[in-house]
């Protein structure tokens, strides 16, 4: 769990608090929107998360 917090802080520059909140959301709800953007940015972010072994996918908001 600390690993997820560490990766979110490192990749997105999130504060410890924000990264922890997102990690807890994943833990409790099964998923969390950790980043948003157009397809190209989303793909780049998913690739970076996969590079760290995090199980990230893309979906349309709504």
């Amino acid at each position, binding site marked *: 769990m*600390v690993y997820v917090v*560490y990766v979110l802080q490192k990749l997105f520059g999130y504060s410890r608090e924000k990264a922890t909140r997102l990690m807890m959301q994943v*833990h409790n709800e*099964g998923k969390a929107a950790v980043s948003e953007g157009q397809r190209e940015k989303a793909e780049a972010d*998913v690739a970076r998360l996969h590079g760290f*072994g995090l*199980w990230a996918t893309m*979906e349309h908001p709504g």
Partner: protein
Amino acid sequence: VTANFERHSDGVRFTLGDAEWKLLLELPAQLHELYHDSEDEAYNRIFPRAYLDPTEENAELQWLEFVHPSLVQQRLDALGLVVSTLEQASGAGRGLKAVDLDEDSVAALLGVLNDARLILGNRLGINEDSEIASTVDPGAQAAYNWLSYLEGDLLETLLG
């Protein structure tokens, strides 16, 4: 008790007992094999789909063609760096070996520890939903606990 990871001016000093070094040095070869075995169940955990929406199958195929190879290469590069770094470890007395890690080798080692932990977790039935093993395999469970401990210790050093 000697800490496994200690921060110093240029990076992180990593210290481990001789027997544990031997275990750690077995990981890269095992991971190397898995990174090339798309039939292994754990492969899909290390290289998951990017799109879950079935109407995005085309985008997923493009991902497999254009992005996936670079993700595999990143993993292989990290393995190479971890091996060459660990091979530089030297005796630190009392049956211990130590090596200094720079930023790149810290990142590579963290990735290797985490991938190995994910793969063992997959074998044991431990995942995001359940931290209780569904398969009884004391050896794998001990290895999983050890990797979790090392990873936690490294993260504590990095975040602390």
